[in-house]
């Protein structure tokens, strides 16, 4: 006879590693932020960096060197690092939200058509030589096409009817993406050699257009959007039970889905419009933290925000410094470093008997 375990007692409470991981991630984040501002074509020592940072706060007279350092740190690098944080945090948190919504760890923030729509918009602006909004035409065009594509997919799928679930959104999304992709392909075919080069640059992503103005435009929606995702973390958790059961427990899935898609479309379109498509962050970062701290969104979303910002800062630093004075597209860095890392994670996860 086998011993019957006492099934009324809790056993084996796992050690909660979240505080340690949070502290480690926070430290790494700050260190990377400092490094990303210090390192580049002109590398600064920590004291130089410190005085450059303070130079704009006080009003002491500056030597020409100090003026240059201050300009590099404030006007170029800090704005760029903050852009990296905004982009990474937006993409990673929206990725977490879409994975939760579709119940699929392979969903990424582009799943509702934002990225491909934005690409189409950017290509149309470049190839058709639209210049309605001057230098802002490309980001505006990409933003409108990105959010517009999501709207079209949502309207066609009409997931509002009771009983229809998110699967329909995916199917309609695939169809709409295919149509958009072929239009984009045709426009690319029409493009001149010069246009092709700027398209290639956009499609592989770059943070080189980052300025305080773009930071100012994107930071408020990003902060508000990510805060909303944190607020919605409990209903997102319940979606793991499936849409029907989430409804039984009091989640209005239809309304939640609309809100999640709205925020995702906005944040991803804002990130992508200024900086081109940056893949991988939205897929991998939430996945990684789910393995480390578990699937609960109340923790997953803030961790993803920090981790996404960290990853894009690192990738951008590599993009700026690996081949000076040229810049390697950030998408290339992300894929070549992130891909093997992701493989390692999968391999390690499989070794420990857990997957997705």
């Amino acid at each position, binding site marked *: 006879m086998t011993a019957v375990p006492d099934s009324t007692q*809790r056993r084996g409470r796992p050690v909660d590693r979240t505080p340690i991981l949070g502290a480690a991630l926070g430290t790494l984040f700050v260190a990377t932020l400092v490094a990303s501002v210090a390192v580049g074509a002109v590398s600064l020592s920590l004291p130089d960096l410190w005085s450059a940072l303070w130079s704009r706060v006080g009003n002491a007279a500056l030597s020409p060197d100090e003026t240059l350092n201050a300009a590099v740190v404030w006007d170029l690098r800090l704005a760029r690092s903050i852009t990296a944080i905004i982009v990474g945090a937006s993409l990673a948190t929206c990725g977490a939200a879409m994975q939760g919504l579709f*119940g699929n760890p392979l969903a990424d923030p582009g799943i509702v058509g934002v990225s491909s729509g934005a690409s189409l918009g950017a290509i149309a602006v470049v190839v058709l030589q639209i210049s309605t909004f001057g230098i802002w035409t490309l980001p505006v065009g990409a933003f409108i096409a990105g959010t517009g594509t999501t709207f079209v997919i949502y309207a066609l799928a009409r997931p509002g009817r*009771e009983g229809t679930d998110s699967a329909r959104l995916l199917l309609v999304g695939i169809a709409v993406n295919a149509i958009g992709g072929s239009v984009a392909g045709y426009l690319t075919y029409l493009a001149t050699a010069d246009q092709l080069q700027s398209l290639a640059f956009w499609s592989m992503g770059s943070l080189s257009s980052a300025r305080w103005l773009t930071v100012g435009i994107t930071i408020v929606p990003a902060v508000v959007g990510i805060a909303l995702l944190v607020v919605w973390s409990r209903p997102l958790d319940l979606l793991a039970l499936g849409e029907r059961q989430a*409804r039984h427990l009091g989640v209005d899935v239809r309304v939640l889905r609309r809100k999640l898609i709205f925020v995702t479309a906005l944040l991803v379109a804002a990130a992508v419009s200024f900086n081109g498509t940056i893949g991988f962050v939205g897929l991998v970062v939430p996945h990684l933290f789910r393995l480390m701290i578990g*699937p609960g969104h109340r923790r997953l979303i803030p961790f993803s925000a920090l981790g996404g910002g960290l990853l894009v800062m690192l990738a951008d630093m590599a993009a700026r410094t690996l081949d000076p004075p040229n810049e390697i597209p950030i998408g290339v860095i992300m894929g070549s470093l992130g891909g093997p890392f992701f493989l390692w994670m999968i391999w390690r996860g499989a070794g420990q008997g857990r997957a997705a």
Partner: protein
Amino acid sequence: MIDVRDVTLRLGGKALLEDVSLACAAGSLTVLVGPNGAGKSTLLSVIAGDMAPDTGAVALAGRPLGQTRVRDLAQVRSVFPQGSEIRFGYPVEEVVAMGRAFRDLPPHADRAAIDTAMARSEIAHMAYRNAQTLSGGEQARTTFARVVVQETEVVLLDEPTAALDLRHQERVLASASEMARAGATVLAVLHDLNLASAYADRIVLMSGGRIVGEGAPWDVLTAERISTVYRQPVCVIRHPERGCPVVLTTSKEDACV
């Protein structure tokens, strides 16, 4: 209480429910039985608010279904669905706690309610296990504990015992019956007629989208009626201890007559 009035539901030209009326009083355990495709789960879905009927109306604890918000409905009824799934690796305890996530109950009582429900379902020892690694039966027990902690007036159970072993089948039905004694309106779909007979205050027999019999176990579970509705010869004997009817399948027609 549950009040179903003249509900008809058609899907793709086929009538899944035809003119079904059912009233379940507070403090009772009603069991829905019937052959495959009789409309039991469909009726339960309509009562749960998952599907809107074409005609007719459903009210739960006095609230008409169509006009009640999702969150308000969750205060009134809990549902044990057929085929539970969990998409990410939440710990078992978390899954049980989800039953109270949007319940307007004092949060300080959550801990005790969750502990009690997990102990009753005998899943306390796996509180920290990844719910995706559970067996079908363990998953069903987790889902049942989740339903229990929701503490609603109306409890709807769709084949809660399908994946369970003998001991846990009995335990789940005993819990359901206990909830009824405490004042809840419990409606369960069961395939096992003997479980139904042992625990139900009232059995409702469905066939072809209609209710074809309802009443106390001895009134509904007659050999003639069961043989006809299920197209399977049976005989009905008395349970030696419980005194309720026991339905046995037989190979030949008229084996017990």
